């Protein structure tokens, strides 16, 4: 069996005092300049198209994201973070990643992110811990130390984003509206749990190969079209 040696690690041979010649030492300022300069450009978001060194590695932004500020990495990231398709891609990949990490704890497959199921797990799991009840849960939340907390994360993340960008604003309604929204929340959660997931888990299940979730999405689109059509008719009637 071959032992580990300094030749196996080329960063090691660059900075190893006995083994290296003058040549790696001569290269090291350039390597450091590349690493530090790259990270400074990434953090500060300087205009990289001025620098001929980075012109070849300029990020090619899609046409829909391109504007006069799209030549820095930071502004590209800012534009990307405001596009829904980026978040959609992120949820899909991270849900698969979290299943690969955590599926040993149990639970259904394609359960990476779901607003209805994870609300159910969070509320029922904490109720079970606090009040010693035995409400139904997914296995992943039943086995683990605390239930899944992604909805709490969504609430905190949305609060951080809205305060950081000064979009947090109290908008009040009437008591009748509160009552309607409360009943609608109860209804939507029960309907979603009868199917076994909100629209997001339906998308994850479709990606996982479940054909009943395709039916859910088609039916949901039909319901949305009916509701939007009724809203359109009502708006037309009010305008006339």
């Amino acid at each position, binding site marked *: 069996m071959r032992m580990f040696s300094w030749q196996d690690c080329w960063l090691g041979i660059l900075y190893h005092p006995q083994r290296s010649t003058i040549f790696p030492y001569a290269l090291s300022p350039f390597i450091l300049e590349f690493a530090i300069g790259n990270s400074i450009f990434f953090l500060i978001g300087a205009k990289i198209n001025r620098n001929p060194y980075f012109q070849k590695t300029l990020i090619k932004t899609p046409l829909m994201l391109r504007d006069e500020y799209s030549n820095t990495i930071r502004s590209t990231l800012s534009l990307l*973070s*405001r596009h*829904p398709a980026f*978040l959609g891609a*992120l949820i*899909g990949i*991270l849900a698969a*990643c*979290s*299943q*690969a*990490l*955590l599926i*040993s*704890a149990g639970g259904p*497959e*394609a359960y990476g*992110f779901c*607003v209805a*199921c994870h*609300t159910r797990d969070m*509320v*029922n799991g904490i*109720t079970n811990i606090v009040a010693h009840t035995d409400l139904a849960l997914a296995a992943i939340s039943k086995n*683990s130390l605390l239930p899944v907390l992604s909805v709490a*994360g*969504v609430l*905190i*993340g*949305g609060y951080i*984003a*809205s305060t950081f960008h000064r979009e947090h604003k109290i*908008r009040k309604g009437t008591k009748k*509206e*509160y009552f309607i*929204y*409360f009943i*609608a*929340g*109860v209804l*939507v959660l029960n*309907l979603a*749990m*009868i199917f*076994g*997931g909100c*629209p997001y888990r339906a998308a*994850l299940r479709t990606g996982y190969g479940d054909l*009943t*979730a395709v*039916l*859910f*999405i088609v*039916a*949901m689109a039909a*319901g*949305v*079209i009916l*509701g939007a059509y009724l809203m*359109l008719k009502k708006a037309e009637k009010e305008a006339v």
Partner: protein
Amino acid sequence: MATGILPKEAAVFFVPLVTLLLGLLIGYLAQRSGYCSIGGFRDYFLFRHTRLLSGYLTLIVAAFVGYLIFWFLTPAAMEHFFWAFTSGPATPIPGAPGGLNTVAYLIFSVIPGFLVGFIAVLLGGCPIRQTVMASEGNYKAAWFFIGMCAGSILFAALVSGWVVALMKALGFGV
């Protein structure tokens, strides 16, 4: 029994932490982008805007790609990928109340889907949009979220039993 990257003893500790971080990231970006699945279909139907709809369609494609990648990397964690081939084309992934036959689950996907779409478009957003709007300071959306919390206890205590009993009385039991 599927086994992931982490062993069970470690995964039990990491479940709340990993899902909390995932939720933080999703909540931040959902607030920035105004992400909404119902709103995507609504905007496309009313105004032919494809911005929000592209988010939902990308989610479906990215979920498939992500599960495919991790099916290659960690096949033990993706035991039943691709579900339609491994478990029969019309059987759903568990999550709905159990003990019923296939036709019941097809009904469970069509009727709730239609009603969820209909109710959510009248309220102006899908569950994640309502949650994010609640965190932005919208009291109506906050009451929607409180309704979801109350409905989860109601579902576990009463509604799931009622639904199973109803479907069995209609002849959809196993």
